[in-house]
């Protein structure tokens, strides 16, 4: 059976599974809709959190980024896992004990202020919408590459599926589909990594394999990483495992980016609200452990995939005549993810540092003398002739490893699972922010259960439409999503929630000043550096890392202003005292 046929079968089967789960898990109460009834087992919540967290970018792009950046890619590996330690120690148990529905709920109640609630609500919506736009695009791209449909059709199919199960089942439907999506995506990811690890090093555990010796080919008997370092030296790249050097980020910048990603992870509303769904404080603590365990399974496999792919790519492409290139090179050239310009006119592909030409390939529609697709981009004058999209490192892996067609199809289903699970988690945040925090808490306190559910479902529809719009017309800033979403989450929520739990003296004035200053600075810096082309003027820290500075500003401002203004009322201080002890936690309650 062909790859395409297998892909249709896999996608059909997995989508039917998600829709059936959603139908079984449909809800009739706001508690079910917002926090899945508060009865999700910690293990299931761990899986759902992992799927919620690992987006199309984690699944498709991350190994590719590490593959091209070598050591430099560690910022993502560390940054997107280390935040769970902060979440488990600083936030999850206490927010669970507090036991309301959303993050703005906590900010509004703890700081006895609707202004604070509103600022938190705007942050939550902004962060989630920026993030979800990228997910919808991811769905479209996977559809177009594997199912040969138009990107926009792919986005619409994705929208319809997510709308169906999110509107029907709310958080409950999302939670149980995410559990299924986690299983699909991790199986797809790990099975290909294991196959490639065995092929190159003979080890079936990729995490050990990439530190082992190569067992076949011309480099037999040499350590894989050592071999890649040597290849890099020969081609003029800096070594794969080398940490700092010419052309790489400085140590302070690497530190700040990693910190901003970690803190941002712990401050992302769609991750935080997952911990409201477990039945107890104990459950919240262990659930964070399960979540990171499940995430680590992919995040420790990714750097192994990255180095296998790097080795394979250089070996199969560099100084190989185009006419003798393996079939996957031409397959992916057809999709525009690989392009070759024959600068030397010898019919041989040369790979070197730098871009082969400016921008992404724009094909002329004609083919050159060796059958390669010609591009109209301005050619650069370096020795590199290859354009290789980083996403290929995961997408082409099964083909490179000669795995059967059904596994290639499974990778497509895995990519879709990753994108859909994250999109749905973000949509519920947008929906609950508007229907619960804005509509119910601030506009209509008398709303009935049925009215609130209806508003929640309608808001999912609106959010899906907005996300879909950005998926079809991606704004220029999608590439900057990382800087924005993490920088803003790090500089707004994290400090305010931590102080809210660990410092009784932090009051309304401190909270609002801290959030506005921290987030304002981060927002301004990212715009200034990423959109107005300014040099990174604050200690050379790039836009991705500035959230760490914004967080520090928020902390300092909140603490100082709180000391200069009256302390919070006694009942708020009592509430802070009570959330510190697990006893007496009920499941998330309405109010």
């Amino acid at each position, binding site marked *: 059976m062909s790859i395409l046929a297998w892909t249709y079968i896999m996608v059909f089967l997995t989508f039917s599974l998600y829709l059936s789960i959603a139908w079984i898990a449909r809800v009739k109460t706001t508690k079910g809709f917002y926090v899945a009834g508060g009865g999700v087992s910690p293990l299931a919540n761990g899986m759902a959190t992992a799927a919620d967290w690992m987006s199309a970018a984690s699944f498709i792009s991350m190994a590719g980024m590490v593959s091209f950046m070598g050591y430099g890619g560690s910022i993502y590996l560390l940054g997107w896992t280390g935040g769970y*330690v902060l979440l488990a120690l600083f936030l999850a148990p206490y927010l669970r004990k507090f036991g309301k529905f959303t993050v703005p709920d906590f900010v509004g109640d703890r700081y006895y202020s609707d202004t604070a609630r509103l600022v938190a609500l705007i942050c939550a919506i902004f962060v989630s919408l920026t993030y979800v736009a990228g997910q919808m695009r991811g769905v479209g791209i996977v559809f177009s590459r594997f199912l040969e449909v138009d990107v926009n059709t792919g986005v619409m199919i994705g929208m319809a599926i997510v709308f169906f199960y999110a509107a029907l089942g709310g958080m409950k439907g999302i939670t149980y589909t995410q559990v299924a999506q986690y299983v699909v995506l991790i199986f797809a990811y790990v099975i290909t990594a294991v196959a490639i690890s065995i092929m190159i090093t003979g080890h079936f555990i990729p995490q050990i394999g990439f530190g082992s010796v190569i067992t076949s080919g011309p480099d037999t008997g040499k350590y894989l990483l050592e071999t890649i370092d040597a290849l890099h030296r020969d081609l003029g790249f800096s070594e794969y495992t080398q940490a700092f050097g010419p052309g790489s980020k400085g140590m302070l910048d690497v530190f700040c980016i990693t910190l901003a990603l970690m803190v941002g992870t712990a401050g992302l509303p769609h991750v935080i609200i997952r911990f409201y769904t477990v039945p107890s404080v104990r459950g919240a603590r262990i659930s964070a452990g399960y979540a990171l365990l499940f995430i680590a399974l992919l995040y420790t496999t990714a750097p192994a995939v990255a180095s296998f792919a790097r080795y394979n790519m250089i070996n199969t492409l560099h100084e190989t005549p185009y006419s003798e290139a393996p079939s996957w090179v031409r397959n992916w050239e057809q999709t525009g993810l690989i392009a070759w310009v024959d600068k030397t006119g010898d019919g041989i592909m040369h790979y070197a540092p730098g871009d082969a030409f400016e921008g992404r390939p724009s094909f002329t529609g004609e083919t050159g003398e060796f059958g390669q697709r010609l591009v109209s981009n301005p050619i650069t004058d370096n020795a590199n002739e290859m354009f290789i999209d980083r996403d290929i490192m995961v997408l082409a892996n099964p083909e490179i490893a000669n795995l059967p067609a059904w596994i290639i199809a499974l990778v497509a289903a895995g990519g879709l699972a990753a994108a859909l699970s994250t999109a749905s988690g973000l949509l519920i945040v947008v929906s609950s922010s508007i229907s619960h925090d804005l509509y119910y808490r601030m506009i209509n306190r008398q709303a009935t259960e049925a009215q609130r559910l209806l508003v929640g479902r309608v808001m999912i529809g609106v959010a899906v439409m907005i996300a879909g719009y950005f998926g079809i017309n991606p704004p220029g800033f999608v590439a900057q999503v990382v800087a924005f979403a993490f920088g803003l989450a790090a500089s707004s929520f994290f400090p305010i929630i931590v102080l809210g739990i660990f410092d009784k003296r932090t009051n309304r004035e401190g909270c609002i000043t801290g959030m506005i200053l921290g987030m304002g600075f981060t927002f301004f810096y990212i715009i200034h550096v990423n959109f107005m082309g300014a040099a990174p003027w604050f200690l050379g820290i790039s836009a991705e890392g500035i959230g760490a500075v914004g967080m520090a500003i928020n902390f300092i401002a909140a603490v100082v202003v709180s000391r200069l203004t009256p302390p919070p009322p006694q009942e708020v201080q009592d509430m802070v005292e009570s959330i510190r*002890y697990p006893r007496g936690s009920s499941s998330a309650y309405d109010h």
Partner: protein
Amino acid sequence: MTKDLSMYWKKNLTYMVILLTIWGVVSYGFGIFFVEQLNNFYLGGFPLGFWFAQQGAIYVFVVLIFVYYFLMQKLDREFDVNE
């Protein structure tokens, strides 16, 4: 009772400080600030600093969360604040 509870909270904070110190040392210490020094040592084919940055720190993160869970389980029972 109140005095008891402030001891509970103090112990919790102590655990947090210890665990977060380990968290910072393996990721920022071994993985970033001292990565070049550690890269002079090898773990099989891995330069050690590189291994911490791409593998080791992540394993330690997972262990830290479970250790905290077990410590707090014990502490909750000891001070009788468990659910």
